[in-house]
């Protein structure tokens, strides 16, 4: 009898220690797969848009992602909640990753639209989807505006205004 209850205690003790150990190991394993702090530390990218050409796509890199900066020509109409005015021109500032599965759409200057080669998605010059599987417009990254200088990664007044309208 005494032996049986001792065995029962040993069994429960083993279960408890193994359970704590298993949970602790899982946490450690999950953390090992987490992105490193150096990666997570927010990066900022500063762009000067004053010398950009009209209707030519500029791509800058922010946190490893391509960011589209497109300066509109006079004949291109802005879209509510999508474009920002810098100086005399409207601009599209968008994360250049297809909202379907993340390919980089190409800008077609003649048609003034974006075409994604992966699954045939299409967007307007303001990044609004018009055809294919993309479920939503191209995302707009947080940015701050100071004269003609864009700081990506910082949510400034112009960005908040844009988000409120969208």
């Amino acid at each position, binding site marked *: 009898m005494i032996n049986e209850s001792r065995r029962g205690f040993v069994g429960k003790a083993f279960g408890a220690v193994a359970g704590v150990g298993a949970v602790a190991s899982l946490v450690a394993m999950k953390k090992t*797969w*987490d*992105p*490193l702090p150096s*990666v997570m530390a927010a990066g900022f990218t500063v762009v000067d848009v004053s010398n950009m050409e009209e209707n030519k796509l500029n*791509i800058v*890199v922010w*946190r*490893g*992602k*391509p960011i589209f900066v497109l300066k509109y020509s006079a004949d291109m109409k802005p879209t509510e909640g999508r474009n920002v005015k810098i100086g005399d021109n409207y601009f599209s500032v968008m994360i250049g990753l297809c*909202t*379907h*599965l*993340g*390919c*980089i759409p*190409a800008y077609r200057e003649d048609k003034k639209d974006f075409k994604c*080669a*992966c*699954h*045939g998605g299409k967007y307007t010059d303001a990044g609004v989807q018009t055809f*294919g*599987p*993309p*479920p939503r417009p191209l995302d707009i990254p947080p940015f701050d505006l100071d004269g003609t200088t864009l700081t990506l990664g910082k949510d400034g007044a112009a960005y908040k205004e844009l988000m409120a309208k969208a």
Partner: protein
Amino acid sequence: MAEFNKAENLGEWFDQRLNTKAFWKTMMSEYWIPKDINFLWAMGALLATLFGILLISGIFLLMYYKPDVNLAFDSVNYTIMQEVGYGWLFRHIHAVGASIVFLVIYIHMFTGIYYGSYKKGREMIWISGMIIFMTFSAEGFSGYMLPWGQMSYWAAYVITEIFGGIPFIGGDLVVWIRGNFYVSDATLTRFFMLHVLLLPLGILGAIVFHFYTLRFPHVNNQEGDFFDYEVESKKFLDGNKKESKVINFWPGFLSKDIMVINIFMIFFFYLVFYHYNFAMDPINFDKANGLKTPEHIYPEWYFLWSYEVLRGWFFSIAGISGKDLGLMAFAFANGIFLVMPWLDRSPTVAPANRRPYFKIWFWLLMLDLVILTIFGKLPPTGSNAWVGFFASASFLILFISLPFITNMEAKKAGGKQ
């Protein structure tokens, strides 16, 4: 300890210590295989051989491969392909092997479906096989990333992005899997670990388990015949080999398997030496560039059917976006084969051609998979998009209707009996 006499020969020496003679009997010379089978039953042994070939060629590639975004591309395309003696040979063997192993896996799987080898006691064989298939798919995907070419990069990108479709946690999950906001060095090193250690170990374990699951139900035969193995093996051992319905695994069954493997190897090395290009995409000879998507992205041929199921949904239905529909269809396609034994509601174990309704279902499925595979590689524009949609929808309909079809078939057969 039992008493030991001096061994007469080496065989006896081992037998005294490891009981090798009894082990050999149980595993090989008195393990029974039905006689009424054809070359399609050699696919299992062929797969085991191909796995060995992949393992050995992989070990040699591992001697020079460097898992680092700055070094990986050149370590493969320059060091292994041009400098290492016969490095090109191991690379071609590994690439062609990885492609062909899927061809043989598909033949093996559809043989199982055709003959109904997944039910009436054989469910665990089927499930262990599907575990192998899923791990093998992950192995193929992670290996494709390693040369760090354009296709490596963008396949990794698109496939990891798929997890972003999972509600609530999707976005964080993608970053977690990649170890960065985008496919980067952290992604390469962790998938390298998976490809060379964890997944091969898992596959090895799953293969051993697959063999174990075969032990008690035994393999099926061309007629779906059930018989008493005790009785039939006794006939064999008593010398009535002609009358017996079984042969021994060794040498009876394996000698024929080895014949099939030999013929296959001639074909395999013909591909390795003269037609390896199908397994080496030209786009992957450009180094990975995270800021330039290639014109047209497609996976290796063996993933095309499920890729097309994903892509087929390009418009929203009932307020659900095309993207979400595609993801749901994709998840369905990748999980549904697992429950095959329960979708087939008919108790009949027989070749498909002898089952009035299942026959039609089986050949429609084959046709649909071929269409999905062909269109999975074509650009998804114009009418291609619609073919993709209908083929993808047909895939879902085929599997959803299977329980009803097989139920009807069972009732019809029941009425006759």
